[in-house]
């Protein structure tokens, strides 16, 4: 089988990754993320209007009559479906959604309220906090697990790859102003799991090879290991992407953001296993001794 010299591009792709991370971080800092009602608080209403005369602007006009702060109206998948979002600070009146529904019903008698979500400011800030904690916790857990199973150098490489994946995925969400909601947090956690999975397979092979060949340096060895596991890497990425693309195109609007985040994550995760996780080991001069010493200590 032909060997691809991945290691020739470690530096180039290293710079590319740095640039991409820099862009993503700038986007996250200066543009920020487009938080949905889960994290920002407010109200989301999904409606379907079948027969009456409707368009985004007409729907917007009707809802504007009720004087809703920060109102946005968007088409949602179908021509007949709309998402209406607004920030309502005063949640004390439990009737207000009902009043709003009755008001809108006058203009669109055949309206169907498919979904109503209303998140108070306290809950949304808690959800945001627990989302951040969940992601940090998963990163810490991965770091710890790899540290136990491998050496610290591997742990560092894996965690750098994970940060890279999470930051880049969020960067794309910031760039495209895609909505961040609870399911995106789930997607990010799954990306963490998937990227780790991918990294571990290559790392496992590197460890095997390090034990086998005492005289080959890590630069060559990492390339050999990548190549040996390459067909698996490609196959698994393809099957996972097939499943995700199927969700993206056929799974409905609600899962679209989630599956997009996952698709990005799988691509970035596969890339980072090769071009972040491996060069880190090279940088840290991991060698035959790194792996074997520990084995001896155990015995």
């Amino acid at each position, binding site marked *: 089988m032909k060997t691809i010299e991945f290691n020739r591009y470690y530096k180039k792709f290293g710079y590319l990754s740095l640039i991409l991370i820099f862009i993503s971080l700038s986007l996250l800092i200066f543009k920020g993320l487009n938080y949905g009602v889960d994290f920002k608080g407010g109200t989301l209403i999904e409606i379907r209007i079948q027969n009456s005369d409707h368009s985004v602007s007409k729907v917007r006009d009707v809802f504007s009559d009720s004087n809703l702060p920060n109102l946005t109206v968007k088409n949602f998948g179908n021509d007949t479906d709309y998402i209406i979002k607004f920030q309502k600070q005063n*949640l004390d009146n*439990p*009737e207000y*959604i*009902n009043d709003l*529904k009755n008001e809108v019903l006058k203009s669109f008698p055949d309206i*169907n*309220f*498919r*979904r*109503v*979500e*209303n*998140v*108070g400011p*306290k*809950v949304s800030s808690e*959800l945001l906090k*627990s989302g951040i*904690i*969940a992601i940090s*916790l*998963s990163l810490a*857990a*991965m770091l710890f*697990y790899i540290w136990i199973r491998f050496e610290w150098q591997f742990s560092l490489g894996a965690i750098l790859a994970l940060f890279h994946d999470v930051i880049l995925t969020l960067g794309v969400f910031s760039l495209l102003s895609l909505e961040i909601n*609870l*399911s995106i*947090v*789930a997607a990010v956690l*799954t990306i*963490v*799991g*998937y990227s*780790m*999975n991918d990294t*571990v*397979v290559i790392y496992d092979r590197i460890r*095997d090879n390090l034990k086998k060949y005492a005289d080959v340096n890590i630069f060559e060895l990492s390339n050999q290991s990548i190549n*040996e*596991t390459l067909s*698996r890497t490609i*196959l*698994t990425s393809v*099957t996972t*992407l*097939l*499943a*995700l*693309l*199927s*969700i993206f*195109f*056929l*799974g*409905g609007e*609600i*899962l679209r953001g989630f*599956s997009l985040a*996952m698709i990005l994550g799988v691509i970035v995760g596969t890339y980072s296993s090769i071009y972040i996780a491996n060069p880190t080991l090279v940088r840290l001069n991991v060698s035959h001794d790194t792996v074997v010493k520990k084995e001896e200590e155990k015995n």
Partner: protein
Amino acid sequence: MLYFSKIKIITVFLITLAFVYLSFSNLFKFDDNFLKNKINLGLDLQGGSYLLLEIDNQPIISQTLQNKLIELKKSFNENSLKVKNFSISNNTIMFESDNLSIDQVEKILLDKESELNPYFEKFKTHQFVVENNANFFSMYLSDYGVVLLNSSSLDQAVEIVRRRVDETGTNEPNILKRGNNRILVELPGLDDPARIKSLLGKTANLTFQFVSNNEKDSFGTEILKFDNDLEEAIVSKRIILNGDNLIDAKPRMDTQNNETIVSFTLDRVGSKKFGKATSENVGKQLAIILDGKIISAPSIREPILGGSGQISGNFTFQSATDLALLLRSGALPAPMNIIEERSVGPDLGKDSIKAGIISLIVGFCLVVIFMIYKYKIFGLIANFALITNLLLLIGLLTLFGATLTLPGIAGIILTVGMAVDANVLIFERIKEETRKENNKILAFDSGYVKSRTAIIDANITTLIAAAILFLMGSGPVKGFSVTLGIGIITTLFSVYFIARLFTSIYVRANKDKGNLL
């Protein structure tokens, strides 16, 4: 070795069969009572409402402090201690003693046996924290005191919420405590929770107080608004009767005035109090007050002795029914706010199920075709393992009575995509091994052995992510972590038992042929 004992084969076969049965029991109605568990559909799939309520315990805390203050004053009086300048601010009671009684005041407050600390006997700790700076004393609720107060009000509130929701006849509501001051209400099938929301938003504190025309009343007076927010009345602070004494309330049609009213029945104590108060005050106006607003203030024409009465107040039949319901189910210990609400209509749920199933089938077929294209006969084996994997997964979800959500379906589809990973790892390893090893059986065997650590590490990392999501996530997202996590376990089973079994059978039968993989 690539060898399975007969017992192992039979066990694997039986386990698989049991789960296949379980997963199909969701589709068809088997006429037996062997197992009644079913996968529950989450609110996002079957439609329904989710409400998160938060109890505002401040009124209870204020009340507790008020009561404590009265108790303190009484106790200091009895012990002839000179204490003055009582005040309550920031949930803290403050007072000053004269310089001579500091020690004695302190002793009374901290004495474990003092009647001021009935709490100590029961919980072995103080309800209040006492601090003093010379003769300036301050007392506030201890952490434990707050916890206990919150949990008792939460317990009561859950009970009242349950009664109110039950009274509306909602199907299989799910009412759970969350944290120390929140209640989660799930209402499957109810996509417009307007009525429940307005019922739960009311404390339903009912009192009967006399309208006081002269402002000099020995109990003090307060100005209250009528329900319509237009009129006001001066009302005595003396509470004749409250909702606790009510045993029944019903909406009724008053045939004389052609008006909807709510009639109520009082318990024995209530009847007596009500009888006495109404006999002594014929001609006066009695205000009927709900949550600080006057519903109506009829004049007492004659003593009401039978222990029943009626409330009128421009009710529609619906509002009379709701008021009766609130009165029957009792008052909440403290007001509640709805801090999160999510409702999904039934047809969005159906659309989601449809989209979920279509994408599952398409994703599954794509993966299956791809595997056959890549690995031919071994692709077939991997696919067979994939199918059993799916059935096992659904079977396990059924066994646990798990809740399937839309992200949960996404988790299943993702499992399909990732499940073949283990088999791919093994097959690729075997390919490498066959290059070095001529004995097919040995090559296959070492392929399995050498890929094991990578497979286990890789799956454990995903499992960690799923576990964290399960612990931190809520609602639909939790459903995703459940299917993802269980999916990993069934994947390992299907790879190491099912796929390996078939691989071993195939390899043994064809060990002398050329390239198998």
